């Protein structure tokens, strides 16, 4: 019998109509790395929780799970707790104690180990993870990435044989996520721990996997090697699933010639074989770069250059404390109505600070911020945020106060117009526009991350903003939810709203922003139309662009590359 064997697992949540898991059968050998993917609500989390007995959800269950030859339920308590490790999305909520060293020891304390044993195991893990430098620090001083590493280290200190990771990098910035995944790879390859990982961001994990499991609506669509998964999925040709796959795989899935590339390097080789020099047509490629965008972006013919900027940041300097270092150093920026402006940059570059300065939450000590041509200081307190400017916080929870989505929206609608009938109508309109009309009776906390994001956005849109500021709106969202979000932005732009989004998500910015600007060290170092911006970068750019570099220099998104390939192939 295999290390982990799931046989015909079915599960229904109490009071739910459909099955959350349906006929799940899966075999995992010891030491394997399994990546589970699928849109939000496809049952990934439910499946992983079933594998961790302590966290198995309540409900109606049938089928069997065998772990190391035994029924999972029959495993001794102690073995179940220590041999199966679980790390989930939010780095902050999983930490129990206030010090790094104590957190690492927490699980071992629970197992009743003696102080010398704990000391040894903790020391071992701290060295393995390279966290000996911050071993004695309070947890509150760590960055998000460090916190998630700590969570992993605390689980690894218990020496598990199987690691269950539920979207562990969803809340991390790309560099921290990369660091986390590197450690996972090390744990899997060098220590031989079996890993089951669910992820939305598949670029990095796909090449690492031995087995990819694609789930949808509680079922396993296909399971197999990452290189074969496209072939396997052929029968189930669904757009929703393909857009979540890594760029090389996505491009391949549209062309389907040769063997499926998994990494950018393999992708480049594959493209070169697909389109030898003689077959390429640079003229088509050039034309392509010009007519890609919507009718409203700054590059479109009907874009009026004399249009006034909705947001104008002029030579802004900011620091938090008088003695502290400058966060923004003479930064200038313009955002126009009907345009999505992507603000990109690394951690600590000042992106979020910039957003808060534009929102009037922080006051620069030098420089000006103009909102629709008016100095931000001249706005009265409430006036700035009504009919004018809104900020979507990173955590939508910070906005939810009521028991149902409807009350949540009604309250905001009420802020602007006390008249019942008008706001009812408006509320219904916005609810339909954002696709939250089915959620109106739910409690905001019972929704998924993507749904919460939409409700928060709906709440803000009821304030009828002309400028929308978004702080990492795609954080933790799956590809499908991102598409929906992008649709919403497009609609807003069509109405002449200016959208400014701060993000680490290059792929999203490349596909959906009109203009991109990169912030570094408190100032913007380059600004330009999205395609030019990314085509001009060599490292800080999309996977598709890196893959097609030298062949189609202006192709930035998967769609670009696919179209260009098809055009060239059809010739």
């Amino acid at each position: 019998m295999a290390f982990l064997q799931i046989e015909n697992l079915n599960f229904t949540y109490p009071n739910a109509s459909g099955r959350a898991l349906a006929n799940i059968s899966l075999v995992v050998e010891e030491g394997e790395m399994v990546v589970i993917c699928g849109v939000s609500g496809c049952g990934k989390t439910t499946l992983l929780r079933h594998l961790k007995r302590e966290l198995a959800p309540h409900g109606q269950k049938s089928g069997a799970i065998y772990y190391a030859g035994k029924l999972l339920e029959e495993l001794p308590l102690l073995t179940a707790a220590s041999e199966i490790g679980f790390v989930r999305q939010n780095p902050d909520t999983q930490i129990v104690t206030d010090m790094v060293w104590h957190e690492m020891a927490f699980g071992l304390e629970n197992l009743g180990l003696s102080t010398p044993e704990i000391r040894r195991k903790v020391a071992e893990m701290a060295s393995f993870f390279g966290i000996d430098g911050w071993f004695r620090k309070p947890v509150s001083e760590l960055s998000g990435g460090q916190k998630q590493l700590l969570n992993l280290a605390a689980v690894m200190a218990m020496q598990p044989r199987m690691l269950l990771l539920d979207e562990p990098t969803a809340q991390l910035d790309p560099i921290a996520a990369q660091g986390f995944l590197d450690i996972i790879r090390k744990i899997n390859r060098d220590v031989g721990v079996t890993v089951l990982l669910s992820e939305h961001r598949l670029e990095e994990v796909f090449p690492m996997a031995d087995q990819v499991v694609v789930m949808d609506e509680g079922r396993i669509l296909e399971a197999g090697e990452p290189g074969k998964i496209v072939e396997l999925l052929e029968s189930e040709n669904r757009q929703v699933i393909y857009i979540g796959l890594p760029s090389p795989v996505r491009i391949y899935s549209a062309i389907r010639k040769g063997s499926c590339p998994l990494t950018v390097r393999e992708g480049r080789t594959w493209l070169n074989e697909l389109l030898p020099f003689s077959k390429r047509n640079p003229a088509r490629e050039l034309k392509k770069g010009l007519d890609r965008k919507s009718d409203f972006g700054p590059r479109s013919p009907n874009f009026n250059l004399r249009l006034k900027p909705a947001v104008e940041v002029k030579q802004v300097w900011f620091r938090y404390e008088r003695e502290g270092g400058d966060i923004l150093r003479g930064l200038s920026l313009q955002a126009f109505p009907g345009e999505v402006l992507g603000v990109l940059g690394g951690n600590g570059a000042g992106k979020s600070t910039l957003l808060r300065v534009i929102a009037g939450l922080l006051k620069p000590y030098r420089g000006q911020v103009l909102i629709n041509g008016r100095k931000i200081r001249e706005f009265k307190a409430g006036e700035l945020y009504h009919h004018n400017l809104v900020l979507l916080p990173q955590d939508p929870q910070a906005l939810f106060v009521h028991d149902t989505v409807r009350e949540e929206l009604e309250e905001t609608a009420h802020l602007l117009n006390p008249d019942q009938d008008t706001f009812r109508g408006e509320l219904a309109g916005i609810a339909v526009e954002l696709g939250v009309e089915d959620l109106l009776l739910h409690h905001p906390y019972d929704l998924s991350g993507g749904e919460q994001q939409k409700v928060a956005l709906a709440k803000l849109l009821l304030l009828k903003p002309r400028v929308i500021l978004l702080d990492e709106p795609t954080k933790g969202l799956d590809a499908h939810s991102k598409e929906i979000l992008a649709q919403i932005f497009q609609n807003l732009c069509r109405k002449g709203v200016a959208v400014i989004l701060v993000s680490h998500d290059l792929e999203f910015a490349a596909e959906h922003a009109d203009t991109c600007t990169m912030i570094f060290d408190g100032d913007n170092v380059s600004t330009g139309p999205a395609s030019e911006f990314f085509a001009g970068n060599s490292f800080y750019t999309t996977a598709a662009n890196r893959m097609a570099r030298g062949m189609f220099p202006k192709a930035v998104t998967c769609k670009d590359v696919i179209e260009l390939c098809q055009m060239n192939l059809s010739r």
Partner: protein
Amino acid sequence: MSDESEPLTPRASTNIDVSAGLKSIDTNIKKNPHTQESMINTSRKTETNTRLKLVRKGLVVLIPVLLIISALVGNGNYGLLSVLLIIVTTVPFFLRFERRKPQARELVIIAVMATLAALGRVVFAPVPDFKPTSAIVIIAAVAFGPEAGFLTGAVAAVASNLFLGQGPWTPWQMFCWGMIGFGAGMLSKGGSKSVLVLSIYGFLTGFAFGWVMNIWFIVAFVQPITWAAVAAAYISSFWLDFTNALSTVLFILLLAKPWLKKLNRIKVKYGLLE
């Protein structure tokens, strides 16, 4: 009580008499008769190893404490004596909790409520005696029962003092806020959960809190202790106690309804029972 400002700041200056101090300690003992009782009960019910261990631990504390108490009474050192008595009173609550082996969710809930109570105290620290702490402790007790109430109060006191400064007042505050929570829990268990009842309770405990803390102040600073001194201490603390009582009522009126509603939802959603 001037518990907010870390160093010992006398709130009244006063003088002589012994009997009053003794009386206040007597009443203190009478008020909490379950102290010794529950210790004995514990030793009777020794079924498991852990219980034995806990009782032994309790006795290790109790015996020297009683010895020291007898020595202190002889010399009229009521300051030390009272601190010891307070510690001894709170011990059984902790031991019971230890013995019960609480679930992870119980711990988290108490920790969240204690954090909010402590945070409220730290945030309002600049305004003497105006703080939401008692109100939050009462709400926690109403939502999750007397024991959770006691622990929320006691833990909030220690945790906030780790920021504001520890001192001999820490055990007193643990006792006071713990008891406020315990009392509120008993009250709501008895069926009186209305905001009005809670407000009245909050108002009374606002004063009770000050009065108990006055005992500490008197035994620590007033020497020798006289009736006049005791009266002076209580009169001079009236406005501070009144502020405390009023702030507690205010915060109960503001918080009780929305918070209890939210806590109930959490209880239902996560299947938590008292």
